[in-house]
């Protein structure tokens, strides 16, 4: 197990991103990653866990998620139910405490990676409620008085699509990185991971068309990496030869997911022909 992150065989990280992960690992601060959908924010957590040989604990945040759920959950309803029907050991509250993703990471015997995915989906106060726990890496279970202390400070990776502004106090405690959209050279490496045998001419054609599409200002939603990979997959399976791509734009629907964008682009492409 090494202590620096260099990317993995299936995850291509640019030097800046590698640098930032190592900064967060060294300073033991949470890493907040922002970027367009499809730039591999979530995958980064998997890659770090794999590269450093640490278990990954995921916490997928929804609009209704409360900060306390990440630490522990006291199942009062179950306890009430058990007391009513005489099941289980009702006298021991510990039986009804379930640790959340952060709680499990603190409690574990080895260092782990905690992914707090899409933190901006939750309520505006959510990040503030976690400040102390992320700083001190410890918390007290009020119901039992037991203190859970992190034996090994987990590597906390937080992703955000910037749907909501995050509070300043929270931002100050994080290392921040914005994943820029990959340039064509890096994109070539990324595609190679998913489609290792792709014809070089076909790949160049695809990338030219893809980046042309991304430069179009009037699209509501620009295609992202994952759509490019799906599109190239579709082209390979269809057995198209690269020459056909010169003046055609097949499977446009894989790249553009909005009806309006699709018709608008179909017109532009027709006009160019």
């Amino acid at each position, binding site marked *: 197990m090494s202590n620096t992150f260099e990317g993995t065989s299936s995850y291509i990280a640019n030097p800046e991103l590698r*640098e*930032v992960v190592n900064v967060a690992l060294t*300073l033991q601060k949470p890493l907040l990653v922002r970027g367009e959908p499809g730039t591999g924010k979530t995958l980064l957590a998997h890659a770090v866990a794999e590269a450093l040989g640490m278990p990954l604990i995921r916490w997928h945040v929804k609009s209704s998620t409360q900060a306390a759920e990440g630490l522990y959950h006291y199942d009062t309803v179950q306890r009430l139910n058990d007391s009513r029907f005489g099941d289980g050991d009702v006298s021991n509250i510990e039986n009804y405490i379930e640790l959340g993703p952060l709680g499990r990471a603190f409690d574990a015997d080895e260092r782990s990676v905690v992914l707090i995915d899409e933190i901006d989906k939750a309520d505006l106060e959510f990040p503030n409620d976690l400040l102390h726990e992320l700083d001190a890496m410890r918390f007290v279970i009020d119901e039992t008085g037991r203190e859970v202390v992190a034996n090994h400070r987990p590597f906390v990776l937080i992703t955000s699509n910037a749907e909501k502004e995050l509070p300043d106090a929270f931002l100050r405690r994080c*290392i921040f990185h*914005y994943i820029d959209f990959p340039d064509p050279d890096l994109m070539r490496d990324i595609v190679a991971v998913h489609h290792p045998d792709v014809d070089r001419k076909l790949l160049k054609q695809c990338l030219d068309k893809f980046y042309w599409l991304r430069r179009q200002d009037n699209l*509501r939603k620009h295609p992202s990496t994952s759509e490019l990979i799906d599109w190239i997959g579709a082209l390979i399976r269809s057995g198209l030869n690269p020459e056909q791509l010169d003046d055609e734009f097949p499977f446009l629907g894989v790249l553009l997911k909005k009806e309006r964008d699709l018709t608008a682009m179909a017109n532009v492409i027709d006009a160019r022909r």
Partner: protein
Amino acid sequence: MFIDFFYHLRDRGIPVSPTEFLALIEALEKGLAAASLSRFYALARSILVKRVEHYDLYDAAFAEFFRDRPFTAPDKRAEITDDLLDWLEEAKFVRQLTEEQLAALEELDLDELREQFEQRLAEQDERHDGGDTWVGTGGTSPFGHSGHHPTGVRVGGEGMRGSAMQIATKRRFRNLRTDRVLDTRQISVALRKLRRLTRTGRDEELDLEATIDATARNAGDIEMVFRPPRENQVKLLLLADVGGSMTPHSELVSRLLSAASNAHHFKDFRIYYFHNCPYETLYTDIARRKGEPTREVLDQLDRTWRCFIVGDAAMAPPELMQPGGSVNYFHYNDDAGITWLHRIRDTIERTAWLNPDKPRWWQSFTTHKIGDLFPMYPLTLDGLDDAIAEVR
């Protein structure tokens, strides 16, 4: 010098806190920047800059700061001096390379490159143009600018092959600044701030506290208590100027309209169109063929609504001030446009005007008149945020 850098960033509008600054010092002590300016650039940004909107400010501030000062890493192994950046200010000439020469340039990996860069910096003491080893311009050395080396550390100047790495002067985050125009997603995010949550509707959510309380009172026999979920109470009216002088802004305005129409979180949402100034009819389609009497529309609204009017507010004075002043020749308005604007304001107190023109163009007579009536904001992300704060 790091203290100076800290104040320089704050001076340039990046809100760096002392805590973050101390974290940077800690990182440097742990050897994370390793005497390289480009690594220091990435390191300092990840610790000090927490909003991508500030990346461009940071790039500009960084380039400005290190143009005048040598970069001295804690272990003083290498410096980038001001002389060096001066040499690189302008390329002297570009050598034409043959295919063979290009192929012969070995592609070094980044770490090797950095090592060599620092090593050569330490040895170099004069200007170089067109050479193949020293840091300079127009050559085939991996270091410098306007050169032909396939990988390479670029120091200032313009890249020609686009493969030189990590340099602040590129300003590649320029278009992420918030004072520039915005896309649909950014608008939706901003509009989400426009909400007031209250509990209304049917009892659908389990109220745990009340359930426990009721159960205890019920001598342990479980009694479930439910409550209504929280709901946004904001009702939004959007009035949009279309056609005429608004045509150059049509794409931007349509993004705002589409974001607002797709925002499901409003309790009620209505949109109407007008040309230059609203009169007795508000139109339900952009072509302005179908419409509803403004009076009837206003009758259905009340003080609980919020209203945004989108328009450039620039028109001929009679269009705003006189009966019959409408820009449409076949249309005679009995009441002046300003009268209708007063009626809108009297119905919906919390109204803001969003102007897609840049504020320095807000000089026309009608813009001033309308600005007296409604708080006016530019149609940018910052402007929209301010407008939302105003009407909330």
